[in-house]
């Protein structure tokens, strides 16, 4: 991996970002892409019931990077799955880009995903038989949409993969694979990108690379992004950080340094 030329990655100095603590607003914010109201999710029943989410309401604002943090079992993944329409809440509803996600059938959800949602996964989830280029263009090919060449070329440069386009995932490092995955999520210009532990399966040297990419997509292209992470360093690039514990949002923080985030986590676990 080190033998490969270093790509032009926009890195962020995480430590110097100012931290602003703010209260959770009672109402939906203007300019929000995703609205969630009264989300609850229970698994199992009777004595074995697990409350993954308890009456969570949240708005994800446009053109901002929202991080969702919390310890294992806090409900952070469940929240993201429900916001993205991968899971259904036991009660409550979600609106994404003006559509009520929780009311959609499979076909409508498929359409919503094509037009409004992009995903970045912890394990990259690239298709092993496709080249990097084919993987990036896959969402468009699935939707039967002709790719916008200019946008595609721009993306390839941003993620720095021009010399890797003909390579298969097995011929690329983890960082390169995740860069392909980010480009794939952005290629259809979705309303929201959901990133599920995007740095969870990367070695530390490539973590900053991917975080920089996500940050750039928000800053340069106004890409609304939701990122679930348990890594304070990752959360520190976010515009807003939601802390979950026991299925509830316990803190809603506007920009925080990694150190501040660690201290919030420590407070919460006390």
């Amino acid at each position, binding site marked *: 991996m080190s033998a490969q030329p270093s790509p032009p990655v926009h890195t962020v100095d995480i430590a110097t970002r100012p931290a602003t603590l703010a209260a959770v607003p009672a109402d939906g914010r203007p300019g929000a892409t995703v609205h969630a109201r009264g989300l609850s999710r229970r698994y199992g029943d009777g004595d074995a019931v697990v409350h993954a989410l308890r009456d969570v309401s949240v708005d994800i604002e446009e053109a901002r990077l929202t991080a969702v943090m919390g310890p294992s079992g806090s409900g952070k993944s469940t929240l993201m799955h429900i916001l993205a329409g991968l899971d259904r809440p036991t009660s409550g509803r979600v609106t994404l880009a003006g559509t009520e996600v929780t009311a959609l059938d499979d076909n409508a959800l498929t359409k919503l*995903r094509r037009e409004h949602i992009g995903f970045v996964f912890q394990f990259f*989830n690239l298709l092993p038989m496709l080249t990097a280029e084919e993987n990036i263009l896959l969402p468009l090919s699935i939707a039967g949409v002709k790719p916008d060449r200019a946008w595609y070329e721009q993306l390839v440069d941003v993620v720095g993969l021009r010399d890797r386009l003909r390579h298969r995932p097995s011929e690329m490092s983890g960082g390169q694979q995740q860069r392909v995955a980010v480009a794939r999520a952005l290629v259809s210009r979705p309303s929201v990108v959901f990133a599920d532990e995007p740095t969870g399966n990367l070695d530390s040297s490539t973590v900053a690379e991917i975080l920089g990419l996500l940050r750039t997509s928000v800053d340069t292209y106004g890409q609304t992004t939701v990122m679930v992470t348990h890594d304070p360093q990752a959360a520190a690039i976010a515009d807003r950080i939601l802390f979950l514990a026991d299925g509830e949002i316990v803190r809603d923080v506007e920009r925080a340094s990694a150190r501040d985030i660690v201290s919030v986590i420590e407070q919460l676990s006390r």
Partner: protein
Amino acid sequence: MRRIALKSIAFRKTRALLTAMAIVLGVSMISGTYVLTDTIRGAFTDIFTASYQDTSAVISGREIVKDAASGTATVPASVLPRVARLPDVEAAAGAVTSTDGVKLLDESNAALGGKRSDTIAIGVDTSQPRFNPLNLVGGHWAAGPGEVVLDKATAKKQHLEVGDTIRASGPGAGAARYRVTGIARYGKVDSLGGAAIAVFTVPVAQRLAGKAGQLDTISLAARKGVSPERLVREVAPMLPRSAQVKNAADQAAHDAGDVDEFLRFFQYFLLAFAAIALFVGSFVIFNTLSITVAQRAREFATLRTMGASRRQIMRSVLLEGAIIGVLASAAGLALGLGLAKGLTALMRALELELPQAATVFAPRTAIVSMAVGIAITVLATVVPALRATRVPPIAAVREGATVPPSRLGASANGLAVATIAIAVGALVAGSFASGLSTGATLLALGGGVLLLFIGVAMIAPALVRPMAAVVGAPARRLGGSAGALARGNATRNPARTASTAAALMIGLALVTVVATLGAGLRHSVRASLDDQVRADYVVTSEASLPDAATRTGAVPTTLAGVGAASIVLDDRARVLGADTGVDGIDPTALARTYRFTWAAGSSAASLARLRDDGAIVKKSFADKHHLRVGSAMTMTGPSGRRLAVRVRGIHTPPTFDRIQPVLAPVLVSRRAFVATFPRPKLRYAFVALDGNPGAATLAGLRQAVRRFPGTKVQTKDAWVTEQAAGINTLLNLLYVLLALSIVVSLFGMVNTLILAVFERTRELGMLRAIGMSRRQVRRMVRHESTITALIGAGLGLPVGLFLAAIVTRALSDQGLAFAMPVASLAVFVGAAFVAGLVAAIAPARRASRLDVLHALQYE
């Protein structure tokens, strides 16, 4: 999405190849069958075209009785000069053809080319080459007595050349020497199946074939400007009633008719085995794709998160199936050409030789092979494709994503039991219900068998655990921890193991049916023959005997120790509107060598009253035609001669006699028989001794029949054993053809194991890391494979025995007994075990060679 299907196949080539193999073999059987039968048909077309190339019309004897031993009626030779004088006839030539009776022999009077050497003896007028279907490739035509021309294939096989001498005998003449004067071909065909062709002059052929003064065909060429139809109209009134005239085209079509009928049957017979192989192949495809879909669950989920619809996933998986189907069918089509040669070799090995000429590859062969191969593959893909569509998008973010269980879930076993119940119902209805049409019966039986296999395959997952506990017990004891793990692996995914074993089950069940019915038939033949025949020795002949022998009796009763020698002559005749077998017997001698069971009103005295105008008939024949003792009937022999008789006695042979009769339904005296049938065949001579059998008596008998080539003497036990073994050729053929479907299921086992090894890469790495040796890994995979194979046997053998029991029960009114072929069943279990070992070779090697470190990191 289309690209994903294509790339996915290219990416997993080995897997696609192994999956495709399941269909390749079945398709190759289809294409091979068509190529083979088309080629044979082509050979015969060549022969018939050659026969009538320059012929306008053909006079021939009528086929008064179908399949008569003495053939069709002949045409009196006196017809030839009369038709030749007709002004519209430019040329006419007579020919003699004998397909049964003439034998080519070596110096010691043994048949050339062994026991089953058929000879077609032909007498042609070589002065009129336009009517001669044969082409000389060396030497010259036979020109006088003591000369013969042989076909190229026979000459090559027997290492005979122009100038060599052979011997020949026939119904009309004993063995004599003939010099080979030439080598010939029939049209463009080197060989006419296994039969040798011997060409004589017309008078020699007439004498040999016992057709003195007779011709089989007269070929006519019309003068210029005279249509064949006009010639036919002119000639027809000049012929006796037993003869007919046809224009050359009609005659060729008539000649081809019998061949066509046989070929059609042969084709369906082979295609049935192609269907079985494809049925097994569809199980293998279904299973392999189900596993693959399960392993690719995360891939499908990821596609769903990117906006792929269920329909797109469905189409993508189906397209993959279709591509595999196309590739497999194309490969099968090509392999079929080779298989056609293989089938020919197989038939030859089983002494069922077929004529050969240039290979015929018809468009129909390609169309049917491709269409069936693709359709079966796509059909087998439907369920796995549906399963792929049920993978929820959220599976993309879960580790170890799995395909959700089938919606049938808990009701699966109930459904399986219901399917089996319907199958058994259909089988019972098809076997025992009366009043069903043939089509309905076949549908009920075929559908029943199919449903039974599917039902057992459905219930099999529930049986895998207990069965693995039984068949896996030795593995656990012998294989230690590897054996115990193997059993665990076999039962880890019961549905997968069950489906793999089910593919093997089908083949094993069918060979079990064959073996069981075979054992039952052998047992019943033995019982029936032992019950009826009381002779000490039995003389049988493959050729018609010389006239003299049939009149005087081939076995001299004067031989020391011989108490009675009963000759039974055989042919077919038209009796009461239907063709029936008729035997000519010596009443007193037969009474001593055959145990009659007389019906009410008949007795041994009936035999004494037989004389030359009486008949003894079987009860079944009498019932069918409402005959009683005293009823009159007239029979017409193959030459058109008639015999009027009265029923003098009715007997009831054992029920199994219907399947393998010892005597024909109608018995008449030998004298009356010889007067009615022109060239009768010796069915048996039963010899009863006065004293105990001795070597001298046997030697004397052998000496006595030596004059008659193709005739042999056996003790009764040897004869009964040979008769019981008569079905062995058929059984062996069935075994070989069913082996194909077992090979297909073997591919399924290899597939499942390789996919399982692939799936458990990390686990295998862990086992190696904690100290499992490569040998132990190999042993573990081998044990898992043999456990699966033995489960297949454990399912297949009972299913086969059950099917055989139903068939036996349905045929019990024919006297068929049920016999358990214990030795064969043991062999089948052993074969299944070996199949398991063979299937495990490649997967075990792959598993043992995994790099431990790499395997542990494998995700």
